[in-house]
């Protein structure tokens, strides 16, 4: 058992090392008693009162409140509605044009196919 025990670092006998550690630990724990305390701040209550008053003061209305509430917000809403309508109309018109173009293309294709059929039939005769 003795051989398995971890030996002291070079230069320090076992007891001395243990004692040194214990002494250091006790000195460090002594810090609980010697730790500095903060002194009273004479301005503490005045600062607290200022914070309380600032909290209790009703919040000032935002600058330009009337203009914002009565003009800007309704105007923005109207612009948004108008933009939505314009976008919806534009999309509908584009779709309609696309469908018409596709129909015209198909008609042309069918007509050219019919013409080719007729030409082919005349050759066979």
């Amino acid at each position, binding site marked *: 058992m003795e051989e398995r025990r971890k030996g002291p*670092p*070079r*230069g*320090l006998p076992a007891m001395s*090392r243990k004692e*040194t*550690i*214990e002494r*250091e*630990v006790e*000195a*460090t*724990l002594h*810090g*609980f*008693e*010697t*730790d*500095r*305390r*903060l002194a*009273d*701040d004479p301005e*503490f*209550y005045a*600062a*607290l009162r200022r*914070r*309380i008053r600032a*909290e209790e003061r009703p919040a000032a209305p935002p600058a330009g409140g009337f203009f914002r509430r009565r003009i800007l917000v309704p105007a923005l809403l109207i612009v948004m509605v108008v933009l939505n309508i314009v976008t919806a109309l534009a999309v509908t018109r584009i779709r309609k044009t696309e469908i018409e173009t596709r129909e015209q293309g198909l008609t042309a294709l069918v007509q050219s196919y019919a013409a080719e059929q007729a030409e082919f039939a005349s050759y066979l005769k």
Partner: protein
Amino acid sequence: MDQNYLNRLRSGDEAAFRALVEEHQNRTVNICFRFLRNEEDARDTAQEVFLEIYRALPGFRGESELGTWIYRIATTKSLDALRRRKRKKRLDALRGTGGSDELDGAAADGGSDPGRVLEERERADLLREAVESLPRSQRIAVTLAKYEGMSSAEIGRVLGTSAVAVDSLVYRAQAGLRRKLAKIYGRRLKNEAEVSPSESPSGGV
């Protein structure tokens, strides 16, 4: 508790509130300081404590003592502030802005000997780090008992537990601190011995 005083506090009597703040200000600030280790943060957090007390006073039913209530809020707010500070520090580290801890020197004035002052500061830092590494309840118990000198019964009321449980927490905390510190000093001695073997008595040629 004086019912008349309590009624004055509840009704928003400024003189009563001032008396309450003046009675508990020192301990509240110092409790915050024990956890935060920064004078400015401690005073700011203590103000938040009294601000919360002021808001909650009309609803205070007097089931616990005012002091207990104040110190409980101070402890909770300090630990919250500490958590926020640690989170900020981690974020700063991630961003590479390297936020510094800016902790105040905790050691008592060691006189005019700069070596001793440095040694005491180092010890105080080691103790603070060891206390910070303790589990939350042990840490609160040992901080209030050892730094603030509060009785087990008082701490029990703050923590919402019995005095016996607080004694056990403090005992376990101290044992944990001894273990941690012994490990640190043991490692330090070992390193010192390895660095300078020739300086030691048996470490000759």
